[in-house]
C-alpha cells in the first residue's frame, strides 16, 4: 500500500500518528547517535563522572546533536499535525461516536480465528489525540533547552520519541492487546528514562522500582486481558463494548468483525433499548474464580484491569514508584506524569468502562466490584497523597504526590460512574501538570545555573561573605537547630549537599524568573481549582457534582468519595500555595536562588524552556470552558448554550450515552470553599510572612510528629520492604535455593551418589578377593601356560616339523571323525 492511500483514506490515517515518533526513534538510535570520545574529566562531559580519570567517554557530537533534534522534532510535529487532521476528519463524520474511523489488519492467527490489529478513532480517542501530541510536542521543545548540555542528548531524544510513539500507539489502538503493547513499551521507556543518568545509584534504583512495581500490576492486567480473550475471542474495543452480539445464544461464538448492519438495527430500535454486547453478557456470566461469590466474569476481568491501572497510574498501594521517578530528567517527569504514562492508566479504565460497569449501574446505586474498588482506592489515594504532598520540600516531589492525588480524583470519579468527569479531568490535568513539571524543571535548571554562578565566583568571596544556608533536608528535620550551628561556615557541607530541588533553598525566584513564575502560578491555580477562571476548577467541580448527586440519593460510595475528595481538594490548594510561596515569594534563601535564571533571555535555552510553558498556560486556563455545565449561572449560557460540549462529545463514545446530572449549587459552593480556603491558608502561612533562610517550615511546629510521618510518606517504602521485598529475597535464597534446591534435591542426589559410592566401594572390596582372585588367577594361569609353551619353542627345526606333523595328523583325525570319512572307508 503506498503512502497516498494512507493519507487519502481517513480510516487509514490514524496508522500514521505513531509512525512519526517511532521512526524518529529508529533513525536517532541507528543513524544520528554519533559520538566522539573525550576524556571524562573534560568539562564538556558535564561532571557526571568524577571518578573516571583518564578514561575516554562517548559524547554526542554537535552535528549529531542538531540532527537528532531536527529528526525528533519532525517526528512529533508530524504526529501532532496528523492528529489534528484526524480529529477534524473524525468530527466531520455525520454521527461521530456511532461512526468511527477504524481499520485493521490480520496480525496472527491463534486458534480458530485470527487476531486483528488495528486503529480506532472514536470521541474518546479524539480527545486524547488533542491532548497527547500537543503536550508531547511541548515537552520535546522543552527538552531541547533542558538537555542542551547533556552529553547523551541523542539517546534522550531517541527514548523520549519511543515513549511518545508508544503512547500514541496506545491511544489509537483498537484492541486491548495493542494497547497493552504500547503500555508495556512505555513502561520500558520509563525504566530507561528514569534511569537515564544511570551512573547515579538512586536513579537506576528508582528506575528498577518503577519498572517492577508497574510490572506486578501489568502482569495481573495481562491476566485480565487473557481471560477476556479466552472468554469472548476478541479484544477489539468496539466488538466488546459497542457492537451488539451477532448471535443471541451465549455460546462461545467468535466475533471477528461485528456486522455494521446489526449495529444500525440496534440504533434504530431507539436509545433506551439495552443493547446486548459482549460486555453486558460477561456481566451476567459467573467468573471462573470467585464466581460462587457472585463475581461476574466482567467484574473479575475488570478487577484485573483496574489493578493494572492502579500500578500504572500510581494509586495506593502501588504508588511508591512515582515519587522516586523524579530521578529522571524533568521532561521525563512531565512525560510520565502528565502526557503519557499515568494518563494511560486512567485512559485504559475509561476505555474499558462499559466492561467494568457491566451488571451494575452506579447512577442507580448498583456498583460492581471493580467500580467499588476504584471508588475506594481512588478517593483514599487522593487524600492520602495530598497529605504527603503537604510535607514535602522537594519541588518535584510535591508535584509527584499531587499527581498521585489528582489521578485518585479521576479513578474515584470513574468508580462512581462519572465517566465524562474523569475524562475531562484527565485532559485538564494533563495540561496543567505538564506545565507545572516543566516550570519546576525550569526552576531547578535556574537553581543549578545559580549554583554554577556561585561556584564560579566562590574563589573571590569565599571567606568574606557569610553564606546563606539552606535548611537541611528530611533526615535532619528534628534537629534542625543543632545542625545549623554546626554547618555555619562549613563550605564543603554546603556545596556537597546542595540540593537544587529543595524548596527551602529557594525563595524570591519571581524576580529573576518572571515568566516561569507567572506560568507556574497559572498552573498552580489551575491545580488548586481556582474558581471560574481555571481549567482545573471546572473538571474538579464536575467530579464533585457527580459525587454529590449520588450522595443526595443516599449512595454510600458517592458520599465517601465526595467527602474525601473535598478534603483532598482543600489540601491541594494549600500545598500549591505553600509551594508557590516557598519557591517564588519572599527573599532568596541561598546564594544559588539569588542568581537563579535560565541564562540570557534571548538564549536558546531560555526560549525553548519558556515557550512551552506559555502555550500550556493558555490551555491550563481555557481548556476548562469546554465542559461547563449548561445550567451554570451566566457562564453556562455563555459556553454551553447548546448543551455541555465536552459531555456530548465524549458521551457519544458509549453505546448508552451517559445522562447528564442536574445542576446543583451545593457542590459548586464546596468547590469554591475548598479551593479558596486552601489557597487562603497557604497564603496566610507562606506568603504573608515569607520563610526566612534557616527558618524551619512553620508546618513542623504545627503538626509535630504527624509532620515527620508525612515527610516519610507514612513509612510506606519501609513497610513494603519489610512486607514484600525481604520475604521474597529470603524465600529465594534460604528456602528455594539453599533448602530445596541445594538441600533437598541435590542432597537427595548426593545421598544417592554416596550410597552408590558406598556400594561401589563394597563391590570393589568384593572384587579384590573374589573376582580379582579369579581374575588374577586366570592371567596367572595363562602366564604359567605360556612359560610351559615357551619351553616347547626350543628353536629346533626338527621339533617344529614334528609338531607340525602331529598337528596335521590330529586335525586330519578330527576331520575324518566328524565328517564320517573314516566310517565310509572300507
Amino acid at each position, binding site marked *: 500500500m503506498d503512502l497516498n492511500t494512507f493519507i487519502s483514506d481517513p480510516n487509514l490515517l490514524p496508522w500514521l500518528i505513531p509512525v512519526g515518533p517511532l521512526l524518529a526513534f529508529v533513525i536517532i538510535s541507528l543513524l544520528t547517535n554519533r559520538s566522539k570520545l573525550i576524556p571524562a574529566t573534560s568539562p564538556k562531559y558535564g561532571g557526571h563522572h568524577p571518578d573516571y580519570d583518564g578514561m575516554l567517554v562517548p559524547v554526542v557530537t554537535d552535528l549529531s546533536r542538531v540532527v537528532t533534534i531536527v529528526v525528533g522534532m519532525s517526528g512529533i510535529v508530524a504526529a501532532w499535525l496528523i492528529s489534528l487532521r484526524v480529529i477534524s476528519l473524525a468530527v466531520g463524520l455525520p454521527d461521530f461516536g456511532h461512526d468511527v474511523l477504524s481499520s485493521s489488519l490480520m496480525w496472527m492467527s491463534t486458534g480458530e480465528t485470527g487476531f486483528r490489529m488495528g486503529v480506532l478513532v472514536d470521541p474518546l480517542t479524539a480527545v486524547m489525540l488533542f491532548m497527547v501530541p500537543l503536550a508531547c510536542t511541548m515537552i520535546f521543545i522543552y527538552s531541547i533547552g533542558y538537555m542542551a548540555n547533556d552529553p547523551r542528548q541523542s539517546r534522550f531524544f531517541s527514548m523520549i520519541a519511543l515513549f511518545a510513539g508508544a503512547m500514541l500507539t496506545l491511544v489509537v489502538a483498537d484492541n486491548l492487546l495493542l494497547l497493552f503493547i504500547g503500555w508495556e513499551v512505555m513502561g*520500558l521507556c520509563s525504566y530507561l528514562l528514569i534511569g537515564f543518568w544511570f551512573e547515579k545509584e538512586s536513579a537506576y534504583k528508582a528506575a528498577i522500582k518503577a519498572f517492577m512495581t508497574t510490572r506486578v500490576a501489568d502482569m495481573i492486567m495481562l491476566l485480565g486481558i487473557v481471560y477476556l480473550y479466552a472468554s469472548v475471542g476478541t479484544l477489539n474495543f468496539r466488538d466488546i463494548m459497542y457492537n451488539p452480539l451477532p448471535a443471541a445464544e451465549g455460546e462461545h461464538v467468535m466475533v471477528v468483525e461485528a456486522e455494521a448492519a446489526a449495529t444500525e438495527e440496534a440504533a434504530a430500535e431507539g436509545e433506551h433499548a439495552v443493547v446486548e454486547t459482549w460486555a453486558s453478557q460477561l456481566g451476567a456470566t459467573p467468573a471462573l474464580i470467585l464466581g460462587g461469590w457472585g463475581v461476574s466474569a466482567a467484574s473479575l476481568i475488570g478487577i484485573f484491569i483496574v489493578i493494572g491501572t492502579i500500578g500504572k497510574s500510581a494509586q495506593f498501594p502501588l504508588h511508591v514508584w512515582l515519587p522516586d521517578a523524579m530521578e529522571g530528567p524533568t521532561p521525563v517527569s512531565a512525560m510520565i506524569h502528565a502526557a503519557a504514562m499515568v494518563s494511560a492508566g486512567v485512559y485504559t479504565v475509561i476505555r474499558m468502562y462499559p466492561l467494568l460497569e457491566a451488571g451494575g449501574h452506579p447512577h442507580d446505586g448498583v456498583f460492581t466490584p471493580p467500580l467499588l474498588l476504584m471508588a475506594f482506592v481512588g478517593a483514599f489515594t487522593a487524600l492520602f497523597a495530598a497529605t504527603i504532598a503537604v510535607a514535602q520540600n522537594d519541588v518535584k516531589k510535591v508535584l509527584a504526590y499531587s499527581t498521585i492525588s489528582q489521578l485518585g480524583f479521576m479513578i474515584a470519579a470513574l468508580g462512581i460512574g462519572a465517566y465524562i468527569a474523569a475524562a475531562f479531568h484527565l485532559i485538564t490535568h494533563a495540561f496543567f501538570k505538564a506545565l507545572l513539571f516543566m516550570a519546576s524543571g525550569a526552576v531547578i535548571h535556574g537553581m543549578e545555573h545559580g549554583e554554577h554562578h556561585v561556584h564560579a565566583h566562590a574563589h573571590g568571596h569565599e571567606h568574606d561573605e557569610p553564606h546563606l544556608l539552606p535548611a537541611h533536608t528530611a533526615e535532619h528535620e528534628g534537629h534542625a537547630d543543632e545542625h545549623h550551628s554546626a554547618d555555619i561556615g562549613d563550605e564543603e557541607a554546603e556545596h556537597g549537599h546542595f540540593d537544587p530541588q529543595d524548596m527551602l533553598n529557594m525563595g524570591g525566584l519571581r524576580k529573576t524568573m518572571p515568566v516561569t513564575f507567572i506560568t507556574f502560578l497559572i498552573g498552580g491555580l489551575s491545580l488548586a481549582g481556582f474558581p471560574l477562571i481555571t481549567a482545573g476548577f471546572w473538571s474538579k467541580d464536575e467530579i464533585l457534582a457527580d459525587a454529590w448527586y449520588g450522595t443526595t440519593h443516599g449512595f454510600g460510595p458517592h458520599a465517601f468519595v465526595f467527602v474525601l475528595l473535598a478534603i483532598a481538594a482543600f489540601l491541594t490548594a494549600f500545598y500549591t500555595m505553600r509551594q508557590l510561596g516557598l519557591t517564588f515569594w519572599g527573599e532568596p534563601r541561598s546564594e544559588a536562588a539569588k542568581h537563579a535564571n535560565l541564562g540570557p533571555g534571548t538564549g536558546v535555552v531560555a526560549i525553548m524552556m519558556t515557550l512551552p510553558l506559555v502555550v500550556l498556560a493558555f490551555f491550563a486556563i481555557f481548556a476548562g470552558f469546554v465542559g461547563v455545565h449548561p445550567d451554570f449561572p451566566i457562564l453556562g449560557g455563555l459556553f454551553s448554550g447548546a448543551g455541555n460540549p465536552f459531555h456530548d462529545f465524549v458521551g457519544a463514545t458509549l453505546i448508552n450515552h451517559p445522562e447528564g446530572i442536574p445542576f446543583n449549587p451545593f457542590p459548586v459552593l464546596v468547590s469554591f470553599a475548598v479551593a479558596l480556603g486552601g489557597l487562603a491558608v497557604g497564603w496566610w502561612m507562606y506568603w504573608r510572612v515569607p520563610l526566612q533562610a534557616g527558618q524551619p517550615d512553620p508546618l513542623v511546629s504545627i503538626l509535630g510528629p504527624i509532620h515527620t510521618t508525612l515527610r516519610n510518606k507514612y513509612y510506606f517504602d519501609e513497610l513494603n520492604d519489610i512486607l514484600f521485598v525481604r520475604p521474597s529475597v529470603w524465600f529465594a*535464597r534460604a528456602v528455594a535455593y539453599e533448602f530445596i534446591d541445594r538441600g533437598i534435591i541435590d542432597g537427595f542426589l548426593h545421598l544417592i551418589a554416596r550410597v552408590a559410592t558406598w556400594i561401589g566401594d563394597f563391590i570393589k572390596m568384593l572384587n579384590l578377593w573374589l573376582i580379582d582372585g579369579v581374575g588374577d588367577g586366570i592371567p596367572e594361569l595363562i602366564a604359567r601356560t605360556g612359560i610351559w609353551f615357551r619351553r616347547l619353542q626350543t628353536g629346533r627345526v626338527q621339533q617344529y616339523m614334528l609338531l607340525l606333523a602331529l598337528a596335521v595328523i590330529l586335525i586330519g583325525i578330527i576331520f575324518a571323525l566328524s565328517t564320517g570319512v573314516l566310517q565310509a572307508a572300507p
Partner: protein
Amino acid sequence: MTQAAFPVLSLIIFVPIIAAVVILFIKREQADLIRGIAIGAAAICFLLSLFVYLNYNSQVSALNENLDAAAASGENVGTQMFSEALQFEEYVPWLPELGIGYHLGVDGLSAPMVLLTGMVAVAGVLVSWKISDRTREFMAFFLLLVAGVYGVFVAIDLFLLLFFYELSIFPMYLLIATWGWVQLREYAAMKLTLYILIGSVIAMIGIIAMVLVARDYFITDAGAAVLQNAIANGWVPAQTTAFSFDMNVMTLAAENGAFSQPGYAGVDVLTFARLWFPFIFIGFAVLAGVFPFHNWSPDGHVAAPTAVSMIHAGVLMKLGAYAALRCGVQLLPEGAQVHLPWIVFLTLINVVYGAFIAFRQRDFKYVIGFSSVSHMGLVSMGFATMNMTGMTGAGLQMFSHGAMTALFFGCVGMVYDRAHTRDIPSLGGFAKVMPWVAAAFIIGGLAGMGMPGLSGFIAEFPIFQGMWEASEQISLSLGGFELTNYYSIIVIIAALGIVITAAYVLRVVSQVFFGEFNRAQYPDVDDITVRERFVLLFLGAPLILIGIAPSVMAPMLQVGMRPVLAMLGVGV
C-alpha cells in the same frame, strides 16, 4: 508419503558428521582451517535448515477442511494429519526385520526447531573461535553434537530418534568435562549425563514396550486391516510391517486404541498409556528441566564452555520437550489426559521456583541457568493446556527461549572472556565499554520477561490464554478428591513468576551493565569484535522479528500441533 526431491534432511545431519571426521584428520596446528571447516559446515546446515523452514508449506493439506470436518464429527484423524504435516520425507527400510527404517521428515513443530538448531550452531562456532586448547577435538565434538540434535528433530522413526538423542548427550559430556569451567566441570558433566541418560533409558524402555504392544495389536485381524488401510492411503510407509518403530505407525496404533486397552499388566483399570505416560513424558522432560529433575541443568550450563551452554540451553533442552511431546503426548494421548493435569503443578513450580532462585544467584551464569529452568517450565505448561492456543504458545516459547537463552549465554561469555569473573556484584558499568553486549542482553531480558513487541510475549500470551481456556475443561481427581478449575489459579501464580523474571533481569542489568565502571579493576576490558557483534545480531533479530510479526512462525507451529491435538481428541 511423499519423498523429497533431494535428501536435504540427510544432508543436514551428515554434513556436520562428515565435517567432524574431516577435522579429525587435519593437523592440530592448522587451527584456522579447522575453524573454517566448522563454520562452513554450520553455515551450510543453517542455510539448508532455512531452506527447509522457508519451503515448509504451512498451508499444508488440501485436506484441511475434510480433516476438520472429520475431527469435528468425532472421527480420529491424527495419523492422517500427521502424515499430511510431514514434508521433506526420506524413507529407506534400514533393518526391516527389527522394524527400523531410516525415516526422516519435518512437520510444523520440527521445522522451527531445525532452524533454531542451525542458528545456534552457527553462533556457537563463532563464539568458540578463540578456543585454542585442542581446537580440533572441540570443533569435531561440537559438530557431532549438532548432528545429533538435528537428527532428533528430523527423525520420524523412534529408533532413530533415540539413537540421535543418545548421540547428542555423549559429546556433551566430553565437551563439558574437557573444556568446561575447571571448578565444576567433572561434577557437572557427570551429573548432567547421569540425569539425562537415566531419563532417556526409562523412556527408551517405555518406547520398546510401546512398539511391542503395537505389534500385538497389528497382528490381530482388526489391527492388520487398519494397517493395510493406512498403507493403502499412504499414511505410513508402504514397507511397514506389524513390528515397526515408525512414528506414523505408532500414531496409527494410538489412534485405534492399541494403548488404551484396559487390563494392561493384569490390572483391570490400567491401560498401557496410563501406566507408561509419566515415564516416557518425564523421562524425556528431564532434558527439558522439569522439576524436580532440573538440577543437572544450571550446573551443566555453568560448567560448560560458552558455545556448549548456548547449544545446551538453547537447543538441547528443546530436544527434551520435543521428544516428550512427540512420544508422550502424541502417542499416548490418553495418558496425557490423565497425567498432565498433575504434571502442570511441576511446571508451575519450575516457573516460579526457577525465577526465585535465579534472583538470588551471584554468579552471572547461574542466573541464566535457572532462568532456563523457569522458562522451560512455561513450555511444559503450554503442553499441559492440551489445546491449540496453549500448544502454539509452547512451540513459540521453545523457539523464543532457544534464541533468547543462546543470546544470554553469548553475552555472559563475552563478559567473562574479558572480565574473567562472573561474580555479579564485582562487575559494573559494562554498558560503557561493551554497549553492544548491554543492548543485546537487555533485549534478551525483555524478551524473557515477556515485553510486548518481542517474542517472549507472543509465547507467553497464548500459553496463559490456553490455561484460561483449559481451566473449565480440565479436572484432576485423586481418589475421592476432585480438583476442578484450578488452571486459572495456576496461571495467576505463574504470571507472578514472570514478575520475578523482570526482577532478576533488571538486577543483572543494573549491577553488571549500569553503575560505575571500574577501570582499575578491569584494565583490559574492551568492546567486542565484529564477529561477536554478528552473533548478537544473529540471535537477537529473530526475537524482534517474531515479536512484531508472529505470523512468520505461529501458523507453521499450528500445523505441527494439529495432529497432536487430534490425537488428544480436541477439535482443532
